[in-house]
């Protein structure tokens, strides 16, 4: 089987040959997918040479005599200990006297199983090991690399081939079965620092097609036909956005990629930038060609140092091979990109605020119209697209708008990534066709609720979104349906909450975030979110009154109506939606002065059950407030005056003798 097809496998096996618009002038190998090796995809050009060279290298890497070890080295992999695993692997290889190539890839999405370590023996498929510990890594080196047999007990999946030794294929894993990876198509499969690996997997072919065979209008038409909508939150049709900017008078024009992923709980942009930076550059260059921009900015959060580093490498490489810069691929089109590091302000995710920030001002939104398409950066026509949107663009141009529009629902076409996190068994980054139900996402892909607890709610859209209750688990998720139940699609953060999550506390958490991030320009947002937060804090401290609940709704209405940008316009959503579905929890706090989920510390009470306490002193040693006293082997007690209700004693007790109520 050919590697390009393998890399493509997660997208789906129905190999509809790339339709590529079907317009005349579709010639030679250019668009047959993939072009057969050794046949130049286009007329002789530097890009064709690069493509041929890249494919040859990729083949040699795969078919070469050296075993390969591939490590997931995205931020998530590193957080789980991938660096230590790399050291262990190097040591073991040296000890065993085996030679193997060690490669680093981005996140493949199954973050719950990090660290991940894949082994490819010459001529054999790629075997992926999950939950790798130092000892497991050594074992794999000894058994698989030296011994030559995959360790079925430790292996998770076979990534690009048929099942061996009973190890399932990656795409057959329950976590993968419902997924279709478009924006994430290369993440975890190719080395993000290698432009050759990207090109060998059809990278920059879409750009080549756009520049050599299509007019900017044709590009816009195909994107419009595909039904692609902005993945950053608002869901505005991408093609229409481009058309506005294309038709706007004024020059120069600017293309901006919004990588200011400020929504806590969302990490798809980080993952794409770290795992497949060239896709974003390619999508951005296509967009620039469509709107007629010669200059562009990549605005990335400073909290994502690895993403920035990978982007810098990618830009330098793309420039070196003439895929970015002057006269790209020998065409008349030139495009230059600069990276702008965000300085930490959530509101800069809003287009006009982001523009102000690039201009070196405070990132405060302004009145629209004029929209950025008319008057954006430095007063010139500007298009701003989100990372995920741009990562999708090359795939749409390669496989055709009909292919993309064939996925999803009526008005919500294609696929969407979701950052699945919170109290779910298998958190990670997933990409699914729109219209999938929340149930499928949480229980089939996510594996259900951690520790088999009860599902309470799913929060989508971050601080601008809402909480979806269990009664809406069957809801097909698309832009319209999520809005209907009082939430939003947002950038795709999906935080799962269980019975131990207090919904009032969640609302307070989001309000404290938006209140802190409100830029202060609009009074209703600046003061209203503060009032709402104060009220919620009072409630979580047991000082709330029943009237507070309606007051929150009234305040929410005022904040929503009186704010210029989406930050204020959506800030009340978490409160309104939790009040709509979980009013009883609010009432428990204000009427019974009780937190049913056992979260709000001021309403908690810790006590030691003298029957169960063995007097091991563990709780006393761990009590930061020195509130626990008692002699060894005698039941201990908590001084309620000193207790700060941190819950340390409850966590460390091995005999369940600490009672929380």
């Amino acid at each position: 089987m050919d590697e390009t097809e393998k890399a493509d496998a997660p997208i789906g096996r129905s190999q509809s040959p790339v339709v590529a618009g079907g317009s005349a002038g579709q010639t030679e190998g250019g668009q047959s997918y993939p072009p057969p090796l050794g046949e130049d995809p286009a007329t002789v050009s530097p890009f064709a040479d690069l493509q041929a060279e890249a494919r040859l290298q990729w083949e040699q890497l795969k078919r070469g005599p050296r075993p390969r070890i591939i490590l997931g080295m995205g931020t998530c992999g590193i957080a789980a200990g991938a660096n230590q695993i790399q050291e262990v692997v190097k040591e073991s290889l040296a000890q065993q006297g085996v030679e193997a190539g060690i490669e680093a890839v981005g996140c493949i999405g199954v973050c719950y199983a990090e660290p991940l370590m894949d082994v490819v023996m010459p001529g054999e498929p790629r075997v992926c090991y999950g939950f790798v510990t130092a000892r497991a890594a050594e074992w794999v080196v000894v058994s698989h690399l030296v011994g030559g047999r995959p360790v079925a007990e430790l292996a998770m999946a076979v990534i690009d081939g048929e099942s061996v030794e009973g190890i399932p294929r990656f795409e057959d894993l329950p976590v993968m079965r419902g997924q279709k990876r478009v924006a994430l198509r290369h993440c975890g499969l190719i080395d993000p620092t290698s432009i050759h690996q990207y090109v060998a997997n059809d990278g920059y072919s879409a750009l080549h097609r756009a520049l050599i065979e299509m007019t900017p209008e044709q590009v816009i038409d195909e994107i419009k036909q595909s039904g692609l909508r902005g993945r950053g939150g608002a869901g505005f049709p991408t093609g229409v956005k481009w058309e506005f900017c294309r038709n706007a008078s004024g020059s120069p024009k600017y293309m901006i990629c919004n990588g200011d992923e400020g929504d806590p709980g969302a990490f798809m942009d980080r993952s794409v930038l770290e795992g497949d930076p060239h896709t974003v550059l390619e999508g951005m260059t296509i967009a620039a060609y469509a709107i007629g921009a010669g200059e562009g900015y990549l605005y990335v959060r400073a909290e994502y140092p690895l993403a920035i580093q990978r982007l810098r490498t990618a830009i330098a490489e793309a420039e070196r091979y003439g895929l970015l810069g002057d006269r790209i691929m020998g065409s008349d089109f030139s495009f230059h990109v600069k990276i702008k590091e965000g300085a930490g302000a959530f509101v800069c995710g809003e287009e006009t605020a982001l523009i102000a920030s690039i201009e070196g001002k405070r990132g405060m939104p302004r009145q629209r119209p004029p929209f950025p398409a008319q008057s954006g950066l430095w007063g010139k026509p500007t298009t701003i697209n989100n990372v995920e949107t741009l990562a999708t663009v090359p795939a749409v141009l390669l496989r055709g708008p009909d292919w993309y529009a064939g996925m999803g629902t009526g008005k919500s076409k294609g696929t969407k990534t979701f950052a699945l996190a919170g109290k779910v068994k298998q958190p990670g980054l997933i990409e699914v066709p729109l219209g999938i139900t929340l149930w499928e996402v949480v229980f089939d892909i996510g594996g259900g609720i951690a520790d088999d607890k009860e599902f309470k709610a799913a929060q989508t859209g971050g601080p601008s979104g809402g909480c979806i209750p269990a009664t809406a688990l069957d809801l097909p998720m698309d832009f319209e349906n999520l809005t209907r139940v009082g939430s939003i699609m947002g950038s795709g953060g999906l935080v799962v909450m269980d019975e131990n999550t207090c919904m009032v506390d969640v609302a307070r958490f989001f309000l404290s975030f938006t209140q802190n991030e409100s830029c202060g320009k609009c009074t209703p947002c600046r003061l209203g979110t503060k009032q709402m937060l104060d009220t919620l804090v009072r409630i979580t401290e047991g000082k709330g009154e029943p009237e507070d609940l309606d007051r929150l709704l009234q305040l929410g209405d005022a904040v929503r109506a009186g704010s210029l940008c989406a930050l204020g316009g959506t800030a009340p959503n978490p409160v309104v939606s939790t009040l709509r579905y979980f009013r009883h929890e609010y009432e428990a706090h204000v009427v019974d002065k009780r937190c049913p989920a056992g979260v709000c510390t001021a309403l908690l009470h810790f006590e030691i059950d003298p029957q169960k306490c063995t007097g091991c002193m563990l709780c006393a040693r761990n009590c930061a407030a020195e509130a626990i006293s008692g002699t060894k082997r005698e039941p201990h007690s908590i001084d309620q005056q000193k207790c700060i209700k941190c819950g340390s004693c409850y966590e460390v007790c091995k005999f369940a003798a600490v009672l929380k109520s």
Partner: protein
Amino acid sequence: MGVQAAADPIDDLLARYSGQPGALIPLLQQVQGRYGYLKACHIEEIARFLKLSPSEVFGILTFYAQFRLTPPGRTHVRVCQGTACHVRGGKRILQELETVLNVRAGSTSEDFEYSLEKIACFGACSLAPVVVAGGSVYGRMTPQKVKKLFGRAESRASTVERLEAGELGGD
């Protein structure tokens, strides 16, 4: 502390941005990157260079969470308080760090050994709760892991105190 501006030059950084529009924020980032925080003398120098008033520069830099006006500790510890981390007990991790490092969030310990900062999200949500210290990212944190990771350093910081109190025999 108390170093003269002349000893902490930023001319080379200024030169890099000469004549470039939108240079203020990248400049502040570079200067902070070099010295760990923004000194008053540097703010004035940047303002002069960009023909802005120092108060304008101050107004812009305090808008953004990234900029610091006080020096960070030798080890800068950042604790994620994003949604996923919050739901998975990020607040407990924060409390534990405050206790173990003996420094409050948003400040620097007196010996400049540690500073602790709350961050809205690192985007490593699937490994929540997350702590970043120095250049390392630590996932799936527990209060016990906080003690293990930072506890040794803590005992070093309080070694003097405990020596003075004559407590160090039995440890």
